[in-house]
């Protein structure tokens, strides 16, 4: 046992298997162990829309990718360095991405004639030489797992379920990660079935031991990836859905209001409903409605009643909510609308990521119906952005759309926990008595233009609101032409006015006046940031500007974007922000579009920057 330990700065590992193989679980446990050892990381769960596709087929492949390092990690990594393939289908689907010369770990036990056939292989790739560009490690994990759990008396089928733990054990050994967090987790998870916990731990240990023993092929190395130099503080790993839900909960606490979430299950937004449903002791009330329309309407009804109404969905569901959002705009009630975007149109790619609902968020309603739109850029960023959405909704009495996406929702990253005491409350002042004898719900704050909010139950403030246009002066129904013009203008001015307190847009890398400004929003932050850094190290004069507030935009947007000679906008859509920017600022922004359901690779953005740099040189 004299394997050298090689020090690496970072590595990308991808676990791929059948959707019943427990790959997400394997990946998240590897993540946990990695986070606790102090490396920075980013993860990418990539799973099929089918709950359980036929075993062994390519469309049933579920994968989990993690990029981790002793340096700052902002993306999931362009190409895995290590691919763990649990069966032929997983190999077939994932091999293209593996770095040339990368390490391929394969469960040879699953490469049966039948599985090869199902994956569409005519010859066995382990034998026909097609993998010679990679370092190949084949082991019969199936057989060895069964051997290692023999003493627990499980049937063959049950025993094979621990195969993922066997592979995880091997990977933990290879990357010098601790097994303790995984065994702790298994013991807790299977507290009521100790024999299952024990079998899984045995498989984990067997996989680990496999790495250590003489059975080992000499080509296997151990790698060590150290802790990243991070700002001091308390950290935990968090997924976007968790951080976003907690941000909403914090918004409730900071505003002193109860949260009522109306939601209808939809991928990839459901985890927000699940997370908030588990926070009942915080006073958070969740309502699983009969459909998307009922979900938003219940949230709006709750807002009318004086609660902080929240609804969460994905693009197709947001489409259904459109009419109610118009009502929220017309009645000027606060509402937070979370859109965890997926690939579209229609049902599209439910489990894949895209950021193609920007038009829908900004324009997607009947009538002139402006509302604020925010986008979060990463799992950890969700917390603060969700609080900001709550704050704006309440301060300005308006629905707010908060855009996340499937990638952010499911991905995890280390999060430096905020100083919870330092979060600023934004307590709401409800109208408590009529002014001048008569209560007018549409009387406005001079600066914010927010209207009066009186809770039903408040004596003296009885009022009626609805979707029909109302008089600027009294709030009663009004069809007066000049009044409709005035109300349309004031609703627009109210939303536009939010820009006054949005922090100025600043490049996250580089500075104003660069030759190229790469402008992004949402989950493309990581790949853009890394690409810009690399391009700068190559001498390209390029900056990265990333939007959180998409409507209204920060007041200095025009000046900042015009300070660049060229603006490049990478988006996981066909150019939606590009169109908005061109429309608002007459800037000839160049699009870089990708709609494959997969996040950008750094090289894709980098190549576009290089092209632009050389073309315009």
């Amino acid at each position: 046992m004299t394997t050298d330990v090689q020090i690496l700065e970072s590595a990308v590992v991808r676990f791929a298997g059948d959707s019943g193989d427990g790959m997400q679980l394997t990946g998240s446990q590897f993540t946990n162990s990695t986070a606790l050892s102090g490396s920075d990381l980013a993860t990418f769960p990539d799973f099929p829309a089918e709950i359980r596709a036929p075993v062994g087929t390519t469309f049933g492949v579920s994968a989990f990718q993690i990029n981790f390092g002793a340096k700052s990690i902002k993306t999931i990594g362009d190409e895995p360095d290590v691919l763990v393939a649990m069966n032929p289908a997983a190999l077939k689907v994932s091999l293209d991405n593996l770095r040339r010369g990368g390490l391929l770990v394969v469960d040879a036990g699953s490469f049966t004639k039948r599985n090869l056939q199902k994956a569409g292989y005519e010859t066995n790739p382990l034998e026909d030489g097609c993998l010679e560009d990679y370092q190949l490690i084949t082991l019969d994990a199936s057989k060895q797992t069964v051997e290692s759990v023999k003493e627990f008396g499980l049937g063959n089928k049950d025993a094979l379920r621990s195969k993922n733990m066997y592979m995880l054990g091997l990977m933990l050994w290879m990357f010098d990660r601790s097994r303790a967090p995984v065994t702790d987790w298994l013991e807790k998870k299977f507290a009521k079935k100790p024999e299952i916990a024990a079998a899984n731990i045995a498989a984990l240990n067997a996989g680990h031991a496999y790495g250590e023993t003489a059975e080992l092929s000499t080509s296997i190395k151990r790698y060590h990836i150290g802790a990243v130099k991070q700002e001091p503080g308390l950290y935990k790993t968090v997924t976007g859905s968790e951080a976003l839900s907690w941000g909403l909960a914090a918004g409730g606490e900071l505003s002193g209001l109860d949260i009522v979430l109306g939601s209808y299950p939809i991928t990839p937004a459901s985890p927000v409903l699940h997370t908030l449903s588990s926070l009942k002791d915080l006073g958070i009330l969740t309502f699983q409605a009969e459909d998307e329309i009922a979900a938003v309407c219940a949230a709006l009804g709750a807002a009318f009643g004086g609660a902080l109404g929240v609804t969460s969905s994905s693009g197709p569901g947001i489409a259904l909510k459109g009419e109610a959002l118009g009502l929220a705009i017309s009645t000027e009630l606060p509402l937070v609308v979370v859109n965890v975007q997926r690939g579209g149109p229609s049902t599209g790619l439910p489990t894949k990521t895209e950021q193609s609902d920007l038009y829908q968020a900004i324009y997607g309603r009947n009538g002139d119906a402006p509302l604020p739109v925010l986008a979060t850029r990463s799992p950890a960023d969700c917390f603060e952005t969700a609080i900001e959405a709550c704050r704006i909704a309440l301060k300005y009495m308006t629905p707010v759309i908060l855009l996340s996406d499937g990638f952010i929702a499911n991905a995890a990253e280390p999060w430096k926990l905020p100083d919870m005491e330092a979060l600023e409350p934004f307590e709401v002042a409800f109208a408590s008595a009529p002014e001048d004898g008569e209560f007018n719900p549409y009387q406005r704050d001079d600066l914010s233009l927010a209207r009066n909010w009186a809770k039903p139950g408040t004596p003296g403030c009885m009022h009626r609101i609805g979707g029909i246009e109302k008089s600027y002066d009294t709030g009663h129904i009004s069809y007066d032409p000049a009044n409709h013009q005035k109300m349309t203008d004031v609703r627009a001015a109210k939303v536009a006015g939010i820009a006054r307190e949005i922090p100025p847009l600043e490049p996250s890398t580089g500075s104003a006046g660069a030759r190229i400004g790469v402008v992004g929003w949402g989950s493309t932050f990581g790949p853009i940031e890394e690409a810009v850094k690399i391009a700068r190290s190559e001498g390209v004069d390029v900056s990265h500007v990333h939007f959180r507030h998409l409507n209204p935009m920060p007041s200095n947007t025009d000046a900042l974007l015009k300070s660049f000679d060229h603006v490049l906008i990478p988006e996981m859509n066909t150019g939606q922000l590009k169109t908005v920017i061109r429309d608002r600022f007459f800037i000839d922004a160049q699009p870089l579009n990708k709609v494959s359901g997969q996040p950008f690779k750094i090289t894709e953005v980098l190549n576009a920057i290089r092209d632009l740099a050389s073309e315009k040189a």
Partner: protein
Amino acid sequence: MTDQSPLTIKDFTSDQEVRWCPGCGDYAILKCMQRTLPEMGATLENTVFVSGIGCSSRFPYYMNTYGFHTIHGRAPAVATGLKLANPDLDVWLITGDGDGLSIGGNHTLHALRRNVDLNILLFNNKIYGLTKGQYSPTSEVGIKTPSTPMGSVDPSLNPINFALGCGAKFVARTVDTAQKHMPGVFKAAHQYKGAAFVEILQNCIVYNDDAWSDITDKKTAQDKQLLLEHGEKMIFGKEGNKGIVFDMDSFSLKVVTIGENNITQEDVLTHDESHIGIARLLAELGAGDGEPVAMGVLYQESVDLSYERAVHAQIDHARQKKKRSIKDIVLGGQTWHVK
């Protein structure tokens, strides 16, 4: 403000001009509501009217209470959210046959199924009024309207049966012209701690005039209406000699005449509000020749907890077991320190 003097019809009347067609049945329902609320001890501030879209849904504007005129068919969902936010409010939901049974059928279904503590008043005039006279889910087959020039071929829906089918635990029926009958139904609905579904037969003078005239015509009303009272015999008719019996042969309700064929008062059914089977039969009554339409509370089943109370009970229970703050959640779980 309620301490000094009892509220009156005036207190509940808003300063807004009522804009229904002259002669519309909605006026009578509005007046009756404004008159009855003070009798129930309602306060202006705790009463909320929520409506969808349609003629009936203008109702909230005319009440000097809280009100929310929402969107087509979705009032039950809005009202559900409102009750979740504040279970103490007295929420009245005003809807029509198009609003509540067509575009909003799904939401009506679930408000009833969940037993949200709402008073749901469905004005049934068997026509679309606001959109100018198209047929509705309760319109009769064959009705000629702008969208059915050759007559409608859609079978019509029975709102009471619909409600019972949804699991409604309080179901009643009244009619716009019955100023004496309506208040009692309103009061019973108001008292009910759950979803109270009330069908109000209502006349649209412009697009479906006389839709209910065979029931409401003073000459025939007594023969065409069966006024139900819990514990009372189901007796009706001008002469007071007609009754409802359960016919074992057809397994349905049958009209009989007391004094004929050896029928005595003893043979007539006694109304039992808690009997779901009879309620289903009563819902259908009126379709056959000589049958009266059942009025009043057809069915009422007592429940421990309305939906929103059950939801809040879970929250209270969770808070008693452990009460965290968001800080506990963010800072809890598996964390590590970087120095």
